[in-house]
């Protein structure tokens, strides 16, 4: 086994910072590759590497209530989940990634929190406390992946500016709360309703900064699986993940999952703020995801559902494996809500593929575990790949579909192992 290579993140950090970064490390030719991998290296996982400056900034750091996560930025807080936590299909709350756009994040007290529901296309204006929401509506739950639109942005070549995420700006949880459609039904939706607009308690330090406000098509917002969630994996939401209540939009990227939800407005016109009209946009027609019709522009359209993807969690690139023994290839696969049809594994750089076993089906929005093995008959380098295909018939891509904001990276992982 390769136990010696399982260096704790803490000691690796000390090692890297102690030598003042990569340059010094690469000068030490004798250092084993896995030992030399800096915090949050994506090359170590069989992907393109995040920018040099990103590697230099990253440390393991524990926010209050969290385990040490890969720190991208302190303020606003952006923290990524390390690969170890994706070896189970449900991501622990204390390891769940953290992503904010604006730095003024209040500590919301459950008893002081209230949700306003209304808007020009609602019949009435309502206000709910947490207790009222729990009492007046039937509980609902869904297991769903929350993935930042820009997960894997750091792997883009050429690099694009933004939070340079590796592979861990995602997590899968059992979300429990009430259905948004039930709450909207109580407010009453008028004919001509087009979008539902969501705001949370977070703000920017400057008044002039556009508040982080997002909208959904009314037919999506009133879907059976969209929740106002209070619980995550049987516990109250962590502060950093939206306590006391957040929106859960299964299948859609994390940008729509408004944290610390305070306001829900039904409107008859497309929401026009910066975060809808300018940010979170894709060149039109580049991806086969669902279309947000009321927000289409001539050149671009909003990001919507996630693309099919997978992650091998049982191997590190550069790892040595023993000849003649099957190599365990395990991981997770997910998509934008059709569910996973199959995951295939290749051990010959994609020349041939073998279907992996799928783990328990936790629902079409959840991570789906897969497991297979690749036999290593000859010594030398071997490239191991995993490729997921969704029930909608979409498959991961061989080549990156580059786009200016760095979204929807689902390039097939290429891990190399040394057979000795």
């Amino acid at each position, binding site marked *: 086994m390769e136990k010696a290579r399982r260096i704790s993140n803490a000691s690796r950090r000390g090692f890297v910072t102690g030598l003042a970064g990569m340059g010094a490390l690469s000068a030490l030719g004798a250092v084993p590759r896995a030992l030399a991998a800096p915090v949050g290296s994506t090359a170590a996982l069989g992907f393109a590497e995040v920018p040099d*400056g990103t590697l230099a*900034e990253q440390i393991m750091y524990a926010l209050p209530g969290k385990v040490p996560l890969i720190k991208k930025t302190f*303020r606003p807080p952006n923290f990524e989940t390390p690969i170890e936590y994706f070896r189970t299909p449900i991501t622990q709350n204390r390891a769940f990634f953290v992503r904010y756009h604006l730095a003024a994040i209040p500590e919301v007290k459950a008893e002081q929190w209230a949700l306003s529901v209304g808007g020009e296309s609602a019949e009435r204006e309502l206000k709910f406390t947490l207790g009222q929401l729990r009492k007046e509506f039937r509980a609902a739950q869904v297991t769903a992946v929350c993935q930042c639109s820009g997960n894997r942005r750091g792997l883009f070549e050429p690099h694009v*500016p933004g939070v*340079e995420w590796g592979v861990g700006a995602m997590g899968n949880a059992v979300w429990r709360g009430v259905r948004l459609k039930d709450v909207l039904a109580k407010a009453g939706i008028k004919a001509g309703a087009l979008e539902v607009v969501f705001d949370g308690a977070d703000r920017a*330090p*400057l008044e*002039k900064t556009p508040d982080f406000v997002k909208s959904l098509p009314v037919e999506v917002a009133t879907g059976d699986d969209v929740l106002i969630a209070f619980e995550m994996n049987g516990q109250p939401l962590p502060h950093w993940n939206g306590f006391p209540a957040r929106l859960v939009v299964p299948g859609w990227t994390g940008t729509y999952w408004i944290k610390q939800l305070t306001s829900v407005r039904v409107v008859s016109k497309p929401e026009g703020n910066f975060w809808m009209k300018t940010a979170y946009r894709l060149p039109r027609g580049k991806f086969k995801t669902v279309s947000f019709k009321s927000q289409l522009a001539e050149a671009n359209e909003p990001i919507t559902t996630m693309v099919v993807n997978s992650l091998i969690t049982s191997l590190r690139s550069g790892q040595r494996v023993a000849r003649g023994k099957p190599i365990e290839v395990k991981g997770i696969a997910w998509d934008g809500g059709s569910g996973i049809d199959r995951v295939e594994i290749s051990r010959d750089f994609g020349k041939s593929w073998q279907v992996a076993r799928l783990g328990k089906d936790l629902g079409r929005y959840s991570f789906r575990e897969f497991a297979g093995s690749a036999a290593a008959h000859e010594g030398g380098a071997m490239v191991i790949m995993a490729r997921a295909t969704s029930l909608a018939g979409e498959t991961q891509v061989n080549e990156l579909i580059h786009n200016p904001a760095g979204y929807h990276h689902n390039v097939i992982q290429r891990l190399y192992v040394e057979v000795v």
Partner: protein
Amino acid sequence: MRMLFTLFALALAGSVGAQEAKVTLKDGPGKEKAMQCVACHSLDYIGMNSRFMDKAGWTASVNKMINVFGAAIAKEDVDAIATYLAQQYGRTPQK
């Protein structure tokens, strides 16, 4: 400027803030002006986005902070900040 430093001091009140205080910018001409960025975000945003942007890329970033996010940075400081960022955090070292 006083408001900027008040905000910065507030942000540093917690333990996360103490960690953030360890993030520093590289020394070089224009660093003082670039320090205005801390009004809204930690300085690791800059290092994280290096080294792959040229001066035009950094100029676009600074302008976005002013025009979209309302950063209180004087227009006449943009070139000095972008030059500093391009030199210290840019794609190719510039003389």
